[in-house]
C-alpha cells in the first residue's frame, strides 16, 4: 500500500495496471485522454502492459474485446460521445460471454467543457444491460476500476466505469494496492458464445436476461451503494450518485439535522435499498451528475405518495454540471455571498486558435475564396479548427460529430447548396471521415474536402495521428479521387495567394476535389523543440 497523487483518470489507469490488465486501447477525447496517456507513459517506463491509441473508439473497443476473447484483461477508454462511435461493439459485447475482464471507461462531460452534448452514459449501460460503476472520488476511481475487472469475469459482462469531468481532471492522494498478475492466454472456450448468428444470439440474449436477478442481488449488497437511515428523520431523504455525494457532504454540516441518505455508486439501481429509504421519508431529493436517470426511474409513469425532487422539478437545474452551490440551494441552505464588482461586467474570453496556427492560414484562404458567393456551405468537424467558427474567421456553418463534415457537405451539395465544403482535421478524417468520402467518390459529388493536416490530434494535447501524415494523400487517391483534383498545399501565409487561387479553382470545379493543407501544429512543434533542447 502506498499513497500517490493522481488525477481521477490516472487512478483508473493505475488500477487497471494493478488489476493485471494486458492491454488498453482508446482514441483521445476530453476528459478521458489522460487515461491512455498515463498508460502509454507507464508502458514506456515498465515495458508493459500494452497501451495504444487507435483510429477511433469502435476500433479501440473491438481490440479490447479481442483481448477479452483471448482470456486476458483489457480496458478501453473514451469520452461520452465516443461511446456513440463504439455503440455497435458495446451493445453486442453484452451478449457474448466475456472471458478476460473487459472494462469500458466512459468519461461524461456535464457542462460541456469540451464537448458538443452532455449525454449520460448510465443510459447506455442500462440499454446494454451491463453493470455500471460510478466512482465519487479518486480513491473510488481506483478501487472500483479494480473491482470492475473482477465483476466482468464473474458475470461475463463488460463493465462500464462512468467518470465525469470534475473527477477525471481533479487530483488528490490515492491509496493504491498490490499488483495482480496478468491472466494467461486462454481462448474463450465456447465459440458459439461469441458468434452472434441469430440462433446463437437468441440463446445469449436469453442468458443475459436470466442473469439479471443475480446482477441485481450483487448491486443490493455492493459496497458502492450505501444506505444510511435515521429513524427520527422522517421528512426529507437524499439520494446521491457519483460525485454529487461530495457536494452533499460539503453542505452537510450546515443542515444541522441527520438526513436519511442513499448513495448509489453501482448500477443496476439497488431497488431494495431505494425501497427502504422511501419507506422512511415523505420527500426525496435526487442529486446526480448528468441526466435525471435515477430520478426518472423513481418517478416512473404514475404518481406516487412520495414527493420526488430533482432536475424535473427545477430543484436542481436540468442542464449543466452540479456545483456545491447548486446542491446547497437544493437543500434549502442560504446562498453564500462572495465578493462582487457592481457595474462591471467581465467580458468573456472564449478559446481561440493559437497565434501562428496553420488552421488560421487555411481559413484565410478559404474565406477569401468564398467571399461574395451566394450560398456557400462550410461543414466543419470536431477539433481545434472548429474555432474557425468564431470571429475573426466566422468561417464555419456546422459542427456536429466526428466525421460529419464530409457527409453533410455531400448532402448539402446534393440538395443544391454550392459550393459545398467540408473542413476536417487529419486525425478526425482518419477517425470517421474516410467512409463518407467513399460515398462522395462513388457519386462524384460536387464538393471540396479541405483536410487540415497539422500532423497531430491537437485539441486533446497533441497525440500522434494514427497514420503518418504522408499517407493521407495516398489514402485519398486510393479511394479513387481524381489526381487532377487532389492537392497537397502548405498551410502558410507565405503561400496565401497561391492557396487562395487553388481553393477558388477547386470550388469552381463541378466534381469532387480534395485539398490537403499541411503544416505541423505550432504547439507540438514547440514541444518537440523543447525536448530537443
Amino acid at each position, binding site marked *: 500500500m502506498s499513497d500517490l497523487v493522481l488525477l481521477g483518470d490516472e487512478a483508473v489507469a493505475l488500477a487497471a495496471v494493478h488489476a493485471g490488465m494486458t492491454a488498453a486501447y482508446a482514441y483521445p477525447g476530453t476528459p478521458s*485522454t*489522460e487515461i491512455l496517456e498515463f498508460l502509454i507513459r507507464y508502458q514506456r517506463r515498465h515495458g508493459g502492459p500494452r497501451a495504444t491509441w487507435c483510429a477511433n473508439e469502435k476500433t479501440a473497443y473491438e481490440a479490447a474485446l479481442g483481448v477479452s476473447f483471448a482470456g486476458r484483461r483489457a480496458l478501453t477508454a473514451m469520452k461520452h460521445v465516443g461511446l456513440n462511435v463504439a455503440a455497435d461493439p458495446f451493445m453486442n459485447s453484452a451478449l457474448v460471454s466475456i472471458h478476460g475482464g473487459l472494462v469500458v471507461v466512459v468519461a461524461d462531460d456535464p457542462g460541456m467543457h469540451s464537448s458538443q452534448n452532455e449525454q449520460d452514459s448510465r443510459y447506455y449501460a442500462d440499454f446494454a444491460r451491463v453493470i455500471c460503476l460510478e466512482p465519487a472520488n479518486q480513491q473510488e476511481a481506483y478501487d472500483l476500476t479494480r473491482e470492475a475487472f473482477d465483476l466482468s469475469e464473474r458475470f461475463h459482462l463488460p463493465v462500464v466505469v462512468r467518470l465525469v469531468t470534475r473527477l477525471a481532471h481533479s487530483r488528490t492522494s490515492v491509496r493504491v494496492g498490490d499488483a495482480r498478475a496478468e491472466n494467461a492466454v486462454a481462448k474463450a472456450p465456447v465459440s458459439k458464445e461469441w458468434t452472434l448468428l441469430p440462433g446463437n444470439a437468441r440463446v445469449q440474449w436469453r442468458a443475459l436476461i436470466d442473469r439479471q436477478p443475480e446482477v441485481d442481488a450483487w448491486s443490493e449488497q455492493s459496497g458502492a451503494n450505501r444506505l444510511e437511515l435515521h429513524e427520527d428523520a422522517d421528512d426529507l431523504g437524499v439520494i446521491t450518485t457519483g460525485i454529487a455525494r*461530495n457536494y452533499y457532504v460539503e453542505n452537510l454540516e450546515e443542515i444541522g439535522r441527520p438526513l436519511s441518505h442513499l448513495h448509489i455508486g453501482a448500477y443496476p439501481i439497488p431497488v431494495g435499498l431505494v425501497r427502504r429509504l422511501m419507506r422512511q421519508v415523505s420527500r426525496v431529493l435526487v442529486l446526480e451528475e448528468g441526466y435525471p436517470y435515477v430520478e426518472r426511474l423513481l418517478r416512473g409513469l404514475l404518481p406516487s405518495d412520495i414527493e420526488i425532487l430533482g432536475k424535473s422539478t427545477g430543484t436542481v437545474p436540468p442542464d449543466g454540471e452540479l456545483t456545491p452551490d447548486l446542491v446547497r440551494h437544493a437543500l434549502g441552505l442560504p446562498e453564500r455571498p462572495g465578493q462582487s464588482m457592481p457595474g462591471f461586467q467581465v467580458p468573456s474570453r472564449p*478559446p481561440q486558435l*493559437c497565434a501562428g496556427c496553420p488552421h488560421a492560414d487555411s481559413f484565410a484562404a478559404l474565406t477569401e475564396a468564398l467571399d461574395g458567393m451566394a450560398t456557400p456551405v462550410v461543414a466543419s468537424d470536431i477539433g481545434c479548427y472548429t474555432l474557425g467558427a468564431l470571429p475573426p474567421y466566422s468561417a464555419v456553418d456546422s459542427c456536429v460529430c466526428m466525421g460529419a463534415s464530409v457527409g453533410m457537405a455531400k448532402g448539402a451539395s446534393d440538395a443544391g447548396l454550392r459550393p459545398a465544403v467540408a473542413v476536417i482535421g487529419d486525425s478526425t478524417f482518419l477517425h470517421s471521415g474516410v467512409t463518407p468520402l467513399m460515398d462522395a467518390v462513388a457519386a462524384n459529388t460536387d464538393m471540396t474536402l479541405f483536410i487540415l493536416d497539422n500532423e497531430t490530434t491537437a485539441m486533446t494535447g497533441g497525440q500522434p495521428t494514427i497514420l503518418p501524415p504522408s499517407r493521407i494523400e495516398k489514402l485519398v487517391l486510393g479511394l479513387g479521387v481524381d489526381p487532377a483534383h487532389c492537392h497537397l498545399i502548405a498551410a502558410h501565409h507565405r503561400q496565401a495567394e497561391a492557396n487562395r487561387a487553388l481553393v477558388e479553382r477547386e470550388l469552381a470545379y463541378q466534381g469532387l476535389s480534395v485539398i490537403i493543407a499541411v503544416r505541423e501544429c505550432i504547439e507540438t512543434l514547440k514541444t518537440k523543440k523543447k525536448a530537443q533542447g
Partner: protein
Amino acid sequence: MKFDIILAGVGGQGVLSVSAIIASSALEEGLFVKQSEVHGMSQRGGAVLAHLRLADAPIASDLIPHGCASLILSMEPLESLRYLNFLSPDGAVVTAITPVQNIADYPPLDELLDRIGKLPRARLVDGDRLARDAGSARATNMVMVGAASHDVPVPAATLERFIEKTFAPKGEKVVATNLAAFRAGREAAL
C-alpha cells in the same frame, strides 16, 4: 484549517504549474489537497480556471463553493475579476498586471487596475518585469507564487523546494531563474 485558492489566467500562462507547485508543497506539509484542473478546448487562449483546496481534514468537493476562497491568484488582471463570487468577504486577490489583450472588448488597463486596487485586499504585482529581472519572462508564474506565498499556509522553504524539483530536469540555470523569480515576487508582495 481550510484554504481554498482560485487560480486564474489565460491558456498558456502556466496556471497548472502554479497549482502543481502549491499542491505538492501542501501535501509535503501533511495537508489534504484537491486540485481541479481544466484540460482540453478552453486551454486554447481562453480563460483558464483551477480550483485548489488545502485543508487539515479530508476535503469532499473538488470544486470550491461560492464565497469560500481565501485567495484568488491570477496571472492576468482581467481574469482576477472573473471569479470574484468565489472569494470570501475577507479573501485576497493577488494578480499580475500585464494584460493579455486577445479579445476586442478588453477594458482600458488603467481603469481595470484601478478597479482591482479598490477590492478589500488586493495586491497588484508587476510579474512580467520581476520575471525579466530574474532572468526570464517565462518565470512570471513563479513570481506570482512568490507574491502569494505570504497568504498560502505552506512555508516558503517548502515552496522553494518544489520549484527546484519541478525545474531540475531543465537544468541549474532554469532552477536559479525560477527561484529568483519566486523570491522577487515574495519580496514585492511584502
